[in-house]
């Protein structure tokens, strides 16, 4: 499989554009010109670390590199310089491709000036089944290198076939991350894409997306909460709203439904390691238990995907699974001996529906009773005057830990209820819906919650 060919007729359509912060480049520009020019041949058969800061430059470079490089490592712009040597070593990197100077002195460096392709057209020739390597943001900070092929990355994009249309995608994700890369590939095959700049505010991004008449927008629930909080969410009128990468609770689904009443609202389960697993489009949190009993078409399971639950954890075997981790002996096996990837996401069955209750390892232990922060957040976020919340643990001499919460009010300061009123209401809601040990011992009102570069809530290690 070769990306250049896979793009198909979209490569020639003037509407098929990638909208960056500073430039809009139609894919057909790569027919007449080249980003890397003659230097592309220097990269043939080699392991290339793709590290331009500008996502549009990176997107065009990966189109040129697929089928040429032996291995291509997609570095998000926030990769810490202190982790760069680990990434280079694990990927056996030979060339560091960057739009900045002096980023990785230890390696042969190739500077690319983007995003506008300025070099003359090159003859495109396929010689290598390029290995695509993504960095998975481990909770401990050191990135894991996850190996994919173009085929595994596109597994969810094969069926149903995507036809040419007027789709304009927008994604809050960086395209070097799994969620963003999925949308980049999808958009390059059919439609256009508005890329989120690394330093761009949500408000500026939404304004640009509105100008490009965006129709399909994707991000994590935290991205969407930030968008709703920005006051700029009304700038866009998407037909399709998609959430992935974190648990989509009923609160965010209901708010997006209210903000975009005419949009198709989909939350998807996907991960860098497991690939795109399924989509849920009934507007409700969780997913139908039918997903595990083979009613695939009816419930949005991707073709060829098999699920099982062991120790309450969702495990996935799929053509979209990554091939493994890179990094020699230090790398743990990605899947069990039957080929199932453990997602580490825990599920609970309630009335014929499975609900994600949190990550294995993120559990708070209150006197021997387990609490998943996400299940408490889901209850708090259902309160109409709460925009977002983060639940964590506080050390406690009696029970080891107690649950504490930070909440971001939904309303602007001037029309907001008194802090004590809001706290009391949230606590009442929690007491109504949760057993006592899951009810926060303390609530703090904050103006914002820190998001990681991947658009997920930053959680302290419990």
């Amino acid at each position, binding site marked *: 499989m070769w990306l250049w060919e896979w793009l198909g007729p979209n490569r020639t359509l003037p509407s098929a554009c990638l909208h960056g912060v500073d430039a809009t480049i139609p894919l057909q520009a790569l027919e007449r010109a080249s980003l890397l020019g003659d230097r592309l041949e220097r990269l043939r058969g080699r392991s290339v670390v793709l590290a331009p800061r500008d996502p549009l430059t990176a997107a065009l470079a990966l189109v040129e590199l697929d089928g040429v490089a032996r291995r291509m490592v997609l570095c998000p712009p926030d990769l810490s310089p202190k982790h760069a040597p680990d990434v280079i070593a694990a990927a056996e990197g030979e060339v560091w491709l960057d739009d900045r100077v002096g980023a990785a002195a230890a390696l042969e460096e190739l500077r690319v000036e983007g995003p506008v392709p300025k070099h003359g057209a090159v003859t495109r020739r396929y010689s290598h089944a390029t290995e695509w390597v993504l960095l998975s943001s481990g909770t401990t900070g050191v990135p894991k290198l996850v190996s994919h092929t173009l085929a595994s990355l596109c597994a969810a994009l094969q069926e149903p076939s995507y036809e040419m249309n007027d789709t304009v995608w927008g994604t809050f994700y960086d395209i070097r991350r799994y969620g963003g890369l999925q949308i980049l590939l999808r958009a390059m095959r059919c439609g256009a894409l508005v890329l989120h700049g690394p330093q761009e505010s949500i408000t500026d991004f939404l304004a640009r997306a509105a100008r490009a008449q965006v129709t399909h927008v994707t991000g994590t629930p935290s991205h969407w909460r930030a968008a709703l909080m920005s006051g700029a969410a009304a700038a866009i009128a998407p037909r399709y709203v998609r959430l992935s990468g974190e648990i989509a609770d009923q609160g965010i689904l209901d708010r997006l439904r209210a903000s975009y009443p005419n949009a198709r609202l989909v939350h998807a389960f996907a991960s860098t390691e497991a690939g795109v697993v399924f989509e849920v489009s009934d507007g409700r949190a969780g997913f139908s238990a039918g997903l595990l009993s083979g009613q695939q078409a009816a419930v949005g399971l991707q073709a060829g995907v098999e699920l099982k639950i062991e120790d309450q954890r969702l495990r996935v075997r799929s053509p979209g699974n990554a091939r493994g981790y890179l990094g020699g002996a230090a790398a743990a096996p990605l899947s069990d001996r039957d080929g199932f990837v453990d997602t580490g996401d825990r599920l609970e069955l309630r009335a014929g529906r499975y609900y994600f209750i949190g990550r294995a390892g993120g559990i708070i232990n209150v006197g021997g009773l387990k609490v998943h922060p996400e299940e408490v957040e889901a209850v708090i976020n259902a309160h109409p005057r709460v925009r977002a919340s983060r639940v964590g643990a506080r050390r*406690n*001499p009696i*029970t080891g830990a107690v649950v504490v919460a930070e909440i971001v009010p939904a309303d602007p300061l001037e029309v907001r209820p008194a802090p004590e009123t809001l706290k009391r209401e949230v606590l009442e809601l929690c007491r109504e819906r949760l057993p*006592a040990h899951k009810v926060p011992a303390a609530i703090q009102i904050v103006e914002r919650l820190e998001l990681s570069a991947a658009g997920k809530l930053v959680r302290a290690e419990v």
Partner: protein
Amino acid sequence: MSLRAVIAAHFQQVAQEQRRQLSPLSDDLRLLQSGLDSLSFALIVARLEDALGFDPFDAPQAVKFPVTFGDFVKLYEDDRRQPAAG
């Protein structure tokens, strides 16, 4: 309000929230017979830390767990008399 009264108010508040029957608070009331469970005590300690700005259980030297309500109050009174630790 005295420290004892603040602590007693938190005992009553948590007991009410946790729907527990709290015995009359006297110095010799054994905590385990007060009607409160361990989660209730955990909540009381967490709330007192927020209200008073210190947690005597967090002292560098091992703290003996209070047995009676009187011990509990004394723990907080003694800690308050200590110079603030860095």
